[in-house]
């Protein structure tokens, strides 16, 4: 494999795609440091395959990020659970009430890997079901079922005592 010299089009890609890719990696891993590592590796792999990846570099890099996150989950599952990682649940500053929004993220981080990935890709990246299936290299049916299971599990995790943010806003 001969590695090519990178041109300005690669720089443009890095400039435009790094922030969204890093944010996706952060939501997939729950850790800023790991997200940075994933992003850097994904950009390097994209650079290595630039001749073919340049047709749709962000899609290529997103797929690498998702695969790396999956590898990381698999490795972590063999080891004791790390504590103190990930965003903490928060409170609505004005009302003192726990908002659904603040309860959701820690709950998302407790979902199984596949379920978390479909939620991040569909509701953060705004990918279609088909695009999500392509990134995760699975069928459309799997994405649909994973999404359904993820939302059901989320409801169980957050319980009944939190309100949608809009209802709290209406109450005040």
């Amino acid at each position, binding site marked *: *494999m001969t590695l090519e010299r990178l041109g300005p089009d690669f720089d443009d890609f890095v400039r435009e795609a790094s922030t969204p890719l890093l944010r996706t990696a952060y939501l997939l891993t729950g850790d800023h440091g790991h997200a940075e590592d994933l992003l850097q590796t994904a950009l390097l792999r994209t650079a290595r395959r630039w001749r073919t990846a340049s047709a749709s570099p962000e899609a290529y890099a997103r797929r690498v990020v998702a695969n790396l996150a999956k*590898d990381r989950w698999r490795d972590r599952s063999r080891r004791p659970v790390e504590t103190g990682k990930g965003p903490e649940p928060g409170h609505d500053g004005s009302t003192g009430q726990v908002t659904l929004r603040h309860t959701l993220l820690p709950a998302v981080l407790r979902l199984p890997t596949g379920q978390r990935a479909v939620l991040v890709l569909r509701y953060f990246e705004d990918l279609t079901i088909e695009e999500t299936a392509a990134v995760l290299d699975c069928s459309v049916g799997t994405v649909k079922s994973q999404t359904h299971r993820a939302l059901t599990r989320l409801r169980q995790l957050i319980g009944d005592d939190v309100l949608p943010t809009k209802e709290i806003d209406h109450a005040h």
Partner: protein
Amino acid sequence: MLTDEDLTSELKLAFGDATRDIEPSPGLGATVHRRHRAARRRSTALQVAVPVAALCAGGVAVVAGGSSTSSTPAPHGAASHLTTSGPSGSRSTIATVAYLLTVPSDGGAASFACLNSAAVQVSLGDETWYVAGVHDCKTMVIDSDASLPADAHPIDFPGVPGLYGRTDPETSSRTIYSRNPDGSWSGVTVAADTSDESLSGYYTPSN
């Protein structure tokens, strides 16, 4: 009861809130360029190195039954085959196997994921993950983006074919090279006296 619409709307808000302040480090682009340039240099060196390595490998091939046995240089990034014939005339083909590296980590220590490796992190350099065991005080360096050097030679770990090795007398270390599933190479550098047996446990064939 929350509807799916409520829940997904809140998810979008939560994801947006959580990532609003997440920005890449300013030097990211430069770091990627630097690492890519280093990989290009190694790649160029490898194109020269591989025929030399192939010649070395050819040196152990024995002509069997009067027919000649050729050894084809292994192209970087593609699976290669090294064919050898023993003096008895029996013939075996050893395919280059890709491996997932799994370095044992200490359960009581902080741990991290390094591509396909699980290990204890000491520090992270530009191109190298430094890892160390805890109780056995073993220190090793894993370069998951290594190149096969010219003087690496095929080594024979029991049950782990397709590896290459190189010893550095100056640092009393040895490096074991294995192919990654994506066709690139990983190098694991350990003390020169580390036994083959302890190292062979790190490699899991991926194909």
